[in-house]
């Protein structure tokens, strides 16, 4: 039976998750050089279009269709066949609405990866990569963890709103992509953000949208929804403040880029835990996500010298792994029905690590293969000249800003 309160909330939550993708574009876009701003926005908006269609046509079916070996969904929901208004078992919202909410997750995951390959990827290669990656990595991963028939789901892996499926897979893919694509030209280890205010705008709206992301993952309005909501905000705040403080201590000044990075790290870390932990635990999770992210971004990356341009791995991957594990630590029966390590449940802790491990290996291996295929077909990196000219002009024949008009 449809519960219309739950339905109303899920309409809102889906809209909130939708707006995260365009605003993520601005979070990323502000950090690149002027000549590449449009390419970042383009890639992100195109993902919104392409993955929406992929999902309607076959992606949803591959993720939530009838199970094949606990690993992937069948083709029974192609073009939304059989996806009507009748709620799925155990749910209270129209099946189509569940499909839409999940669609927005499928959209934002590849969009997160964009940050790793900015300023040097060929648009055609990018497009092919996104389609293949969503189909071959994301869809099975979503099936394994979220479909009631998925093997990780059955094992009891906790992933409230996509820490494993979304942030770990995206983060690991980003790392692999940045290693395979090589460094950007003319950036040394980085370059000044061309328009930091745009990134702050993006971060503000990511925080806003994340309410839908996490509190929407309860798939209705319940006290767990409220818990997820409170935890989301608290972890974001804790992430922001703790990154600010470390920045201040280590680099002598608090920075706005640090604060917005901390916000995202805190939000990522709390994502798998949102519906399972207490508000006080979410403070620790936010701090932990921020600390891990800070360490990777300003120590590890510098040491290894890979060009994960906008720190997708450092922020999403690392804070995502931390969050997945922390969920196994901090889970509290009184909130979401399951206990974690601090409440003596070692078993759950083990499952969490297993699920994170599976996501890491699956995303890494899959990305290497897809990269090779795409590189053969369209090529993945632009010509030197095109990179120097900037992707906006070379890939899209447009300029972000006029100098004189």
């Amino acid at each position, binding site marked *: 039976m449809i519960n219309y309160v739950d339905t109303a909330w899920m309409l809102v939550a889906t809209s909130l998750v939708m707006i995260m993708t365009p605003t993520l574009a601005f979070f990323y876009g502000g950090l690149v050089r002027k000549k590449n701003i449009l390419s970042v926005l383009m890639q992100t908006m195109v993902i919104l279009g392409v993955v929406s269609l992929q999902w309607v046509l076959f992606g949803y079916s591959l993720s939530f269709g009838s199970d094949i070996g606990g690993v992937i969904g069948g083709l029974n929901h192609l073009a939304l066949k059989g996806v009507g208004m009748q709620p799925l078992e155990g749910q209270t919202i129209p099946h189509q609405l569940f499909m839409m909410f999940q669609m927005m997750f499928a959209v934002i995951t590849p969009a997160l990866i964009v940050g790793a390959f900015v300023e040097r990827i060929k648009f055609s290669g990018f497009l092919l990569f996104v389609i293949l990656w969503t189909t071959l990595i994301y869809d099975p991963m979503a099936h394994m963890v979220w479909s009631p028939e998925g093997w990780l789901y059955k094992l009891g892996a906790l992933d409230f709103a996509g820490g494993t499926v979304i942030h770990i897979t995206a983060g690991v893919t980003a790392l692999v992509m940045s290693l395979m694509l090589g460094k950007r030209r003319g950036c040394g*280890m*980085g370059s*000044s*953000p061309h328009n930091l205010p745009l990134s702050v705008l993006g971060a503000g709206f990511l925080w806003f949208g994340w309410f839908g992301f996490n509190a929407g993952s309860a798939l209705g309005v319940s006290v767990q929804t409220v818990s997820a909501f409170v935890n989301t905000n608290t972890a974001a705040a804790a992430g922001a403040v703790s990154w600010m403080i470390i*920045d201040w201590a*280590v*680099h*002598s*000044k608090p*920075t706005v*880029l*640090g604060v917005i*990075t901390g916000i995202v790290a805190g939000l990522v870390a709390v994502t798998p835990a949102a519906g399972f932990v207490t508000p006080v635990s979410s403070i620790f999770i936010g701090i932990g996500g921020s600390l891990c992210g*800070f360490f990777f*971004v*300003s*120590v590890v990356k*510098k040491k290894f010298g890979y060009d994960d341009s906008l*720190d997708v791995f450092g922020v999403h991957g690392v804070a995502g792994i931390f969050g997945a594990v922390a969920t196994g630590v901090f889970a509290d029966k009184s909130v979401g029905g399951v206990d974690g390590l601090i409440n003596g449940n070692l078993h759950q802790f083990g499952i969490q690590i297993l699920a994170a491990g599976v996501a890491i290996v699956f995303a890494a291996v899959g990305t290497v293969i897809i990269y090779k295929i795409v590189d053969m077909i369209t090529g993945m990196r632009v010509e030197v000249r095109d990179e120097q000219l900037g992707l906006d002009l070379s890939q899209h024949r447009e300029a972000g800003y006029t100098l004189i008009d």
Partner: protein
Amino acid sequence: MKYVIAVIRPHKLEDVKAELDKVQVHLMTVSEVLGCGRQKGVTEVYRGLKEVSNLLHKVKIEIAVNNEFLEKTIEAIEKGAGEGEIGDGKIFIFNMEDCIRIRTHERGKLAIG
């Protein structure tokens, strides 16, 4: 006729304009530039990556003057722009062969003012 190019601190623009006004120099062309000089740039830090940029925001002023105004103009700029600390800027002086006022087709000294 002389052409004066001065590179100064951005926040001194108003002061320089005021000093120039006092000596009856009202016409000029101003633009935004990045200066690389003795003044050390502020180290910017982005996610822990330090960027020791030695390109600092400066303002460039260009003034065409008749010879008799040259020294007054230089003094006015010095007065308006000087703080006595590294980074105050420089003034470059050139000989200008001709000057034309587009509106009236006037040439030379007449066109400058």
